[in-house]
C-alpha cells in the first residue's frame, strides 16, 4: 500500500468516526428538542430493536448463517430478565446480565446441531426452535404465566435512581445501544470478526487458511444471542408486561427485514433498519388496512434497486440491482455512440 491510499484510508476512517459522533450528539440532544412523548417512545423502541439487530447481524450478516427464529433468544432473554427481577428479586443490571447469559447458553446449545448442516437447515432449525419455545411459553403456566405472560415487572432502579419517565428510558436504552455498538464494532474489526467474514464469503477458503469454522460459528451464535437476550430483558423492563405474542415468527422476520434493509454486514445499517421499520409504519398509520402491503412494496423495491441494503456489504449484492443495471446500459449506449462517430 503506498502512502496516498494509506492517507485516504485513515481519512475515510476518521470521516466515519466524525459521522458517528455527530449522530450520537444528535441522539443525545434529541429529548431536549423533541418534547413529544410518542416520538421519544418510537426512538426508544428503535434502540432496543437495534440491539437485537446487532445480534442478528453478527449471526446472519457477518457469519452468513440463516437464523430465522432469532426472536426466540430475544424472548428467552425477555422472560429470564422479567422473572429474575420479579421472582428472584434481582436488581436491574443483574437481571439484564442474567438474561443475556441465559440466552447465550441457549444460543450455544442451539448452535451445536447447526454446525453439521447447511445454511437452510440452520434457518429451519432456528424456526423450529422458535415454535418449541412458543409452545413452552404458552403452556408452562406455573413459570411463564401461559398466554397471559408475565405482568407487573418492576421499574428498573440503577444506583438508587428509579427509571420511569419517557426521557430516562430513552437515555437508558441509548446507553445500552451505544455500549453494544462499541463492543460489537470492536469484535468485528478484530481478527475474530475477519474470520467470521471469511466464513461468510467462502467457508472452504477460510477453513483452508486455518480458520476453525466450527468454533467461530459457535462464537457468533453465542455472542449474537447474548445481545438478543440483553435486548429482550430491556424490552421487558421497558413495557413492564410481556406475553408470548410479543415473540412470534412475524417479529423474527421483521428483525431479519430490518437487517436486510439497513444492509447486511453493517452495524450502523442495523440501527437504520430498526429505525425505518419502527418509524415508517407510523407515518401511514391512517392506512391501517394497507399498512402491511405498503411495507411489502417498499421491501420489494428496496431489494430490486439496492439489493445490499442501504449501507450493506458488497458481498450481498450479486450483480446488483436495477439502478446499477441502468447505469451500465447507459455506459454501453454511450460507448456505442462514440464508436459510431
Amino acid at each position, binding site marked *: 500500500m503506498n502512502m496516498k491510499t494509506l492517507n485516504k484510508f485513515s481519512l475515510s476512517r476518521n470521516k466515519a468516526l466524525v459521522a458517528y459522533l455527530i449522530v450520537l450528539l444528535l441522539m443525545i440532544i434529541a429529548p431536549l428538542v423533541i418534547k413529544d412523548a410518542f416520538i421519544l417512545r418510537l426512538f426508544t423502541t428503535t434502540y432496543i430493536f437495534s440491539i437485537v439487530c446487532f445480534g442478528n447481524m453478527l449471526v446472519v450478516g457477518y457469519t452468513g448463517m440463516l437464523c430465522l427464529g432469532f426472536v426466540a433468544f430475544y424472548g428467552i432473554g425477555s422472560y429470564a430478565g422479567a422473572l429474575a427481577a420479579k421472582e428472584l428479586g434481582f436488581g436491574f443490571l443483574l437481571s439484564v446480565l442474567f438474561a443475556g447469559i441465559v440466552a447465550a447458553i441457549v444460543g450455544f446449545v442451539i448452535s451445536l*446441531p447447526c454446525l453439521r448442516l447447511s445454511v437452510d437447515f440452520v434457518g429451519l432449525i432456528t424456526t423450529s426452535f422458535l415454535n418449541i419455545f412458543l409452545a413452552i411459553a404458552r403452556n408452562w403456566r406455573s413459570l411463564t404465566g401461559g398466554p397471559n405472560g408475565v405482568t407487573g415487572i418492576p421499574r428498573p432502579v440503577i444506583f438508587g435512581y428509579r427509571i420511569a419517565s419517557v426521557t430516562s428510558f430513552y437515555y437508558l436504552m441509548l446507553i445500552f445501544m451505544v455500549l453494544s455498538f462499541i463492543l460489537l464494532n470492536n469484535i468485528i474489526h478484530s481478527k475474530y470478526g475477519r474470520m467470521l467474514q471469511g466464513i461468510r464469503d467462502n467457508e472452504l477458503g477460510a477453513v483452508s487458511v486455518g480458520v476453525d469454522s466450527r468454533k467461530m460459528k459457535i462464537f457468533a451464535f453465542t455472542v449474537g444471542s447474548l445481545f438478543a437476550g440483553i435486548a429482550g430483558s430491556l424490552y421487558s423492563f421497558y413495557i413492564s408486561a410481556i406475553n408470548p405474542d410479543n415473540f412470534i415468527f412475524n417479529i423474527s422476520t421483521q428483525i431479519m427485514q430490518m437487517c436486510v434493509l439497513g444492509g447486511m454486514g453493517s452495524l450502523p445499517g442495523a440501527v437504520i433498519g430498526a429505525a425505518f421499520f419502527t418509524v415508517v409504519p407510523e407515518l401511514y398509520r391512517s392506512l391501517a388496512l*394497507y399498512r402491511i*402491503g405498503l*411495507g411489502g412494496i417498499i421491501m420489494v423495491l428496496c431489494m430490486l434497486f439496492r439489493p445490499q441494503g442501504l449501507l450493506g456489504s458488497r458481498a450481498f449484492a*450479486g450483480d446488483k440491482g436495477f439502478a446499477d443495471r441502468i447505469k451500465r446500459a447507459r455506459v454501453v449506449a454511450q460507448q456505442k455512440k462514440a464508436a459510431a462517430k
Partner: protein
Amino acid sequence: MNEGLTYFLQQVINGLSCGAIYSMIAIGYSMVYGVLGLINFAHGDLYVFGTFIAYSLIIVLSGMVNPWLLAIVAGCLAGCVGMVIERLAYRPIRKANRMVPMISAFGCAAVLKTISQAVWGPEAISFESLSFLPEGSFMLGNLQVYNRALFIPAVSLAVVIIMQYILNHTKFGLGTRCIMQDSATSNLIGVPSDTIIPLIYFLGGFLGVMGGVLYCSYYGYISIDMGMLGTIKAWAVVMLGGKGSFWGAFFGGLVIGVAEAMAGAYIGTAYRDAVGYIIIVVVLMFRPTGMFGHKKVEKV
C-alpha cells in the same frame, strides 16, 4: 379389536389425511425450492389467495359448475400470479445473495396478504358448505373410515406420480433437472431457463392451490393467517423429505401429519406443533440431507 388399538388406528388415519394435505402443499413448494433454492415465503400467501379465488368462484357460480373445475381455474390464476411475481420481484435479483430474493418474497407475501385481507376480510370464512370432499364413511371392524380420509391421500399420491413422470420423462422435466443441477452451466448449453423457471412457479402456485382447497375443506374454514403457517410447514416438510424430491415431500408430509396426530392424541393438543418440529430437528441431526435427499459433495 380392543379400544386402545382402535383409537390408535383412528389417529393414524387422521394423521395420514392431514399429512397428505401437507404433502400437497409441499410438492408445489418443493418445485421452486428444489430448483432455485429460494426459500419462497410468498408460497403460503399465494395458495391462500388462490383458495380465496376458488371460494369466490364457487359462491358466484353456485351449483352450476363442478367445484373441482373451478378450483383448477383458480389454481391457474394463482399460477399466473406466481409467474408475475417471479418476473417482477425474483428474476432481476436471481444472482444476488440468497437472502435478497428471500426478503423480496417476504414483501410479496405481505402484498398478497393485504390484497386478500382487503377483498375477503380478516375473519375466517366457513368452507364447510363447499362439496370438495366425498361424504360418508364405512366401518372396517370397529374402525370408522371416512371416505375423505381415503380420497385426500389418493389425490396426493396421484399428484406425486404425475409430477414424477413430468420430471423424468418430458423435455420440460429434463430442463428442470438441468437447472436443478447447475443453473449457470445449463444456461450455457442452451436450456431456456427464463421459460422454464416461470413454468415452475406456475406449477408451484397451481399445486399450492390444490393443496389449499383440500386443507380448507378438511378443516372447514379459510383465513388469511394460514399463509405464513403454511409456508413454514411446507418448508419443514420439504426439508424433512429431502430437497427437490417429490417422494420426499410426500412421505415427509405423511410423517409430520401422523406425528402431529399422535402428539395431539397422547400428549395434548398444546404441544402438537412442537412435536412435529422436534421430529424434524432430530431427523435432520442424523440425516442432514433429509429422508430422500441426495448427498451433494462439494468440490473445490
